[in-house]
């Protein structure tokens, strides 16, 4: 095997702490020979990787619930079919609309962020209006889900009435709890935006999470509609 001798790469060793970690390269791995000059200056922000990792965990959780539903339905003839509360369909429209308003917000904020570098820090106000609309729609969705639970309960269908109702409550409540996390994320984004400390990666991660919650709800609705 060939033996190679190379000069130590010239690299800036004075990168100060506090600038954050990273730079190890993700897709641009260090090539053979150890030429560090070919490494791009930064890796992706951790938030943009972390959000995918978090979504993978949530996907696994709901996959487990789904497989439990399928196995349990097939294991006994006691499964009862029932019509879903109609408000769920309205809720679906609300959560789709919230994704659209969030995208509107993201566009406004992106152009605002680009402009901010050109103007003084205290001038102008942050474009949080669409975020408030998204937040409102999210709260409306949770209220709508709560209405569906109350409606079923008032009709005498509780968590333990039948296993099909059990799964309905478990899946919808688990989704709502995860969605509350998304609402918390939106509040955090609004706060950071108003204090001019928002990172693009935070905004993108929150948006991705919110859209995922919407997609997850549509999947659950389809599952419940098919199975219940």
């Amino acid at each position, binding site marked *: 095997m060939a033996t190679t001798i190379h000069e130590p790469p010239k690299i800036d060793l004075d990168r100060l702490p506090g600038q954050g970690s990273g730079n190890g390269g993700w897709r641009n791995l260090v090539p053979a020979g150890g030429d560090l000059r070919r490494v791009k200056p930064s890796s992706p922000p951790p938030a943009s990787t972390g959000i995918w990792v978090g979504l993978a965990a949530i996907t696994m*959780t709901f996959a487990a619930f789904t497989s439990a539903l399928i196995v349990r339905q097939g294991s006994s003839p006691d499964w009862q079919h029932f019509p879903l509360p109609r408000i769920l369909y309205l809720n679906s429209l609300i959560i789709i609309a919230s994704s659209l308003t969030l995208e509107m917000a993201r566009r406004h904020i992106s152009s605002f962020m680009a402009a901010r570098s050109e103007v003084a820090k205290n001038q102008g106000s942050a474009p949080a209006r669409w975020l408030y609309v998204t937040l409102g729609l999210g709260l409306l969705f949770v209220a709508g889900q709560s209405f569906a639970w109350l409606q079923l309960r008032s009709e005498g269908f509780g968590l333990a009435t039948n296993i099909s109702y059990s799964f309905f409550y478990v899946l919808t409540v688990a989704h709502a709890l995860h969605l509350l996390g998304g609402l918390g994320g939106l509040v955090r984004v609004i706060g950071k935006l108003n204090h001019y400390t928002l990172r693009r990666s935070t905004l993108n991660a929150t948006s991705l999470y919110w859209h995922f919650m919407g997609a997850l709800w549509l999947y659950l609705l389809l599952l419940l509609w098919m199975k219940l």
Partner: protein
Amino acid sequence: MHDMSAHAATHGAPTSFIRKHVFSTDHKVIGKQYYALALVAAVVGMFLSWIMRIHLGWGSFAIPGLHLLSSTGAPGDVMTPEYYLQLMTMHGTIMVFFVLTTAPFAAFGNFFLPIQTGAEDMPFPHFNMMSFWVTFVAFLVMVAAFFVPDGPTLGGWTQYAPLSAVGAVGGPGQGLGVVLWAASIGIFCIGQLLGSLNFITTTLDMRCKGMSLLRLPLSAWGWFITSIMGLTAFAVLMPACILLILDHVAGTSFFVPSNLVINGQILPHSGGSTLLWQHLFWFFGHPEVYIAIVPGMGIVSHVLITNMRRPMLSHRVLIYSMGALAVLSYMVYGHHMFVSGMNPVSSIAFSFPTLVITIPSTIVVLIWLGSLYGSKLRINSASLFALGFISMFISGGVSGFFLAQPSLDIMLHATYFVVGHFHLVMGVAAMFGIFAGTYFWFPKMTGRMMNETLGKTHFILSFIGAYCIFMPFHYLGMAGNVRRYQAFTDDYLIPLIPVHKFITIAALFTGFAQLIFIYNLIYSRFKGPHAPNDNPWEGTSLEWSTATPPPHNNFGDKMPVVYHDPYQYSVEGASADYIMQTSPEKISSPDEEK
């Protein structure tokens, strides 16, 4: 407004005691907190095993003070059959979750993964802090079960339904005890998910300049692979625990079948699937075996390389094999269910990957042995425990071949053969990995050295003791000795009682040997000699290039830059017999660089 592209985890050093030592976001403090928690849990778990072993050897022996733990479970200081099962359940649960998962993965991983990757901290330090405290709460909830009226659950660490789901009618601890167990494990899952999120993101995004993935040390690879398993496995166990709690507190019927009669009482549940719990549990449960052992594989490889003064035969193949173990671990879980009445075709479907998973395991072992062959291994406490790890892993792994075959497993499954198998391959091996890591990294973690004489004594006694305890289990199993029995009264079991007495004596002896370790650990922490320098073992990876103990941001005023593979030992033409990853020294090596 700032759109900072620089990464997170750049927080200043805390000044208050609370933020510095209690609610700290520093990964090193969190790693030490995890280690302390695991140590306490290990002492509790070992204590429980002592009580059980004494009872198995001498069933009528009154253990002084046992009634203080439970007056109903141990009237007259002799435990009831039910209480034996309760202690067994808690022993298994505490050891698997709060020791074998917590110490090698969360404790060492937290302390050293960011340093070995060249990061200042984890990317989400507050999540990291939460992960420890959530785990701590989970431990408190688990231990609280000892102090509720009926005591802890008796269903075993696997909590098979329907026993786990029927409620108090199922026996002592099957009401509130199970709810506390499921709540604790559910909370534990949240902690591990938060930890895994940080580990994965640290490895992918926080590596310093020059640190490509293949330049990560094998220990870092072990933690990275484990975190991926943790993310997917604990995310499944958590919903299973939620459903189990609902069967208890809300009267649902996820796991309890129709018309089930227990203690003369027909239960109101209907249609539940007992197998559903097993599927959900073992989808987590088998990867959990590898969650416990893969970090040990990485740690042991790291320790051995440093002491062999040469790299493994193949860095890449070792990584690929650990990855293969992780992937295959999800495909084999059904081999825990061979006796559940599953379709024989399913048994074959699970048996085949179970046999296949021995291939990467064997490759790993062969790489270790091949690399050790002819090396001038430095003998110290860390390297001895690393060798012990390999020995235990092989001994425990070999019996896995037998259990992988449904026809043999049906005979052996409910016997002590299985107990011997998993204690060696998962329990003792992982513990030896923890010990190897402790002796190896103690100087970096504390700035002081552990006593080598005590360490070697600890190893010799533990090595002999572990084999004395767990090898006879295989014999007992082949003789048909069923497990989870608190007394052996059948004719064919009575002749085996002397073996149990021998095992009990060995367990007490080995347990006392661990007091040497605890003494060494505590004494050395405060009175041990100071580490002679920042790199007492002459290692090459990044943890040895920073101060001892590392500063708050890990690397002081200069971020590291990596030039070399992690294990450049005995490099021809180099100024020393090792070249650190951060050294810009010219190198003449056939293997540079990945």
